[in-house]
């Protein structure tokens, strides 16, 4: 018991030391852009967590008498076509948009990484087959897939997520496979084989940790793309169901009011932009820190 505690403590201490003394961290914080990115992401995360508590109004409560009110003190971002408070909707939406982004990216990441790892490590026909699958996904118009998924399952938020996840994993698979192929040839992997380490353990303990760097970078940037993707899907009518205050859907619904009720589209638009911006800043920073040789964001937005 005490021994276990002890190992945990030393483990933590080691981690802490590794983090504190890490050049990477210092380098990360040396760049103001990285700090800005982190700040944006952290702020938005807080908004996502606390949004519903902090929102002044119920995001769904309509007030047709006070529709399309320009920003005032009572409604800092005005009201929408149905008299709902845009600011409150934005706050509620933060959680949704963030949630989608994180969930979709997580699915893509896990799926893509698993496939890439398998393809790269197994090699041969398995690799050949999986890579053709990746090619098919990339060559397939993502839109059709999204339309069909939404069509089959109905365009709920969950299905939008599914649709986006299904079309995005291939970039991860490619990236991971590429890294695995080169890492596999590194001598520490050969060393592990000679030490009798099992294949699974080699894949999971030796290869995986050495390929996650670029994957995390890609994922960070992907978070932004996913939010843009939901906006795109909303544009062609496959967004979240009303009255869900999802940002992409709000932007898309407000797009015809850009001239008159400008706050309708610009508020969610700015929120999306800021988020994507923040994630990308963060991703850039992480890239410099985690993997200076990362070459491509094999990203194919829908």
């Amino acid at each position, binding site marked *: 018991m005490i021994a276990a505690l002890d190992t945990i403590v030393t483990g933590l201490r080691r981690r802490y030391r590794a983090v504190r003394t890490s050049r990477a961290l210092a380098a990360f914080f040396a760049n103001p852009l990285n700090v800005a990115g982190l700040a944006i992401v952290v702020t938005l995360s807080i908004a996502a967590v606390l949004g519903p508590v902090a929102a002044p109004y119920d995001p769904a409560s309509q007030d*047709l008498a006070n*529709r399309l009110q320009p920003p005032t003190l009572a409604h800092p971002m005005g009201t929408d*076509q*149905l008299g709902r408070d845009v600011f409150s909707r934005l706050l509620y939406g933060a959680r949704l948009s963030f949630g989608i982004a994180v969930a979709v990216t997580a699915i893509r990441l896990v799926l893509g990484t698993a496939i890439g790892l398998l393809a790269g490590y197994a090699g041969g026909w398995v690799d050949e087959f999986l890579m053709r699958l990746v090619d098919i996904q990339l060559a397939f118009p993502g839109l059709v897939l999204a339309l069909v998924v*939404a069509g089959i399952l*109905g365009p709920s938020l969950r299905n939008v997520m599914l649709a986006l996840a299904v079309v995005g994993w291939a970039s991860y698979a490619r990236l991971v496979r590429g890294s695995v192929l080169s890492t596999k040839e590194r001598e520490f992997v050969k060393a592990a084989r000679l030490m009798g380490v099992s294949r699974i353990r080699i894949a999971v303990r030796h290869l995986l940790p050495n390929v996650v760097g670029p994957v995390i970078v890609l994922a960070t940037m992907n978070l932004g793309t996913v939010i843009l993707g939901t906006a795109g899907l909303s544009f062609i009518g496959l967004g979240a169901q*009303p009255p869900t205050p999802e940002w992409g859907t709000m932007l898309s*619904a407000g797009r015809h009011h850009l001239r*008159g009720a400008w706050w309708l589209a610009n508020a969610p638009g700015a929120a999306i932009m800021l988020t994507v911006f923040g994630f990308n800043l963060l991703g850039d920073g992480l890239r410099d820190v985690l993997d200076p040789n990362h070459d491509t964001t094999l990203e194919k937005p829908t």
Partner: protein
Amino acid sequence: AGDRAADETAFTIGLASDPTDTSRYDNWGGMAPYWTRVIEPLVWGTDDMQPKPWLATDWTATDDTTWVFDLRKGVPFHNGEELTADDVVHTFEENILTERGDFVYGWLHLEPGSVTKIDDYTVEFETTDPFPGFPGTIAHNMIDIQHPDADRRAGKIIGTGPFTLEEVRRGQHIRVERFADYWGGDPTPTALTFRAAEDETTRTDLLESGEVDLIYNPSKGRLPALRESDDVRVDAQQSAGAISAWINIHREPTDDVDLRRALNHAISQEELVRTVLEGVGEPARGPISPVIDWVDEDELPTYERDQDAAREFVDRSAYDGEELTCLVSADMDDGRTISQVLESQFDEIGVDVAIELLENASVKDRTDRGEFHLQVGSTGSNSPGADYIMWENFHTMGVDNKDLYEAEGTGLYNLGGEVDDLIETGYQSYDPAAKRDAYVEAQRRIMDAAVVVPLFYQEYVVAADAAVEGLELHPIERFAEWRDLTRTA
């Protein structure tokens, strides 16, 4: 804008749908038969949706299934030749009833070989079954008459309309020019360009930038500003369309009339029109536009907005708080806002509704299977022959109801029994008064059973450069008349 400087009598019109869709309008060489007025049918429609003589001057039903049409004399085709019965027979037999596919038979109740020439100016139509709505039904832009020399698929359109087809640019525009020998008199505009402008903001921007002179249905958000503007004239015209929330009366719990009445009492049509519709539309009391002659609003029961009454109805009903689904087509203008207003107002009377905004095809799929409680839907007609609205929607054998009725004896919006009889009577009645009585009674019963929550009768809006005058709008927006279009200095 450049075109206009060159020619003060040419106009550009921005349409909300693509008028050049080859795959849809290939029979006209990629030109929408609507709006463009290059081709004309035998029958036209009056402002109150009655068939009106056009290329045919008169028609009579000689028996239950035979119609005889007299043709107008002295109508020249664009190639200079005169319209005769041969041309009509040729058009129907060689084109309409052969090339367009079998579905036309069901629509027109005609089959190949059923159109015959009696003399040079008389044609006889033999319908497959009694069809009193025939003249109104063929008063449709697609049932046009063309010269046998026309090569439709190749884009060589030889019609009789006031304009001749000059150019089709796929996905872009159609250009027509004045036909000087038009039988109805010389049109004023020398040329018209119909531009596709499907996105409402883009369309409105095109008007604002001066690239087009006139647009249909500007962006609602821009209407207040356009109405205020001195440079733009905004006209609205009531159409043959109506929007309602349709209720699936064969599914629990909306099979309970009390719940349906409650829903009816929950809504204020006036408020809806005034607010989210920016005043475009008329508060409705029934599911069909009163522009159509056999609709009489005053005969219908009314449901005032009354939340207390609504709650009482809810209490009385079998409804116990479950979530009702409400289908909305993503294509429907304002569908998203309208459905949200409904949802919120139903919520106030304690009825929980979840909106499902779906693309058209998915909506169709769901309605086919009857898996929904409410649907925000519309009725309307592009020809004066609107009988099918009653038949297809409310008759047990109508397309919406038939499958479910045949499979499990239900349907969607069909009350069955006497209502079916009334609709059949109306459908087959050659006497306008009898038809009207039957249909009005059917509608009364439908509203009494609260099969729909009527929302509003549709209006369409045209915004034009303030200098443009002489536009004649028609309840069927595709029947617009450009002949007198002029531009003031």
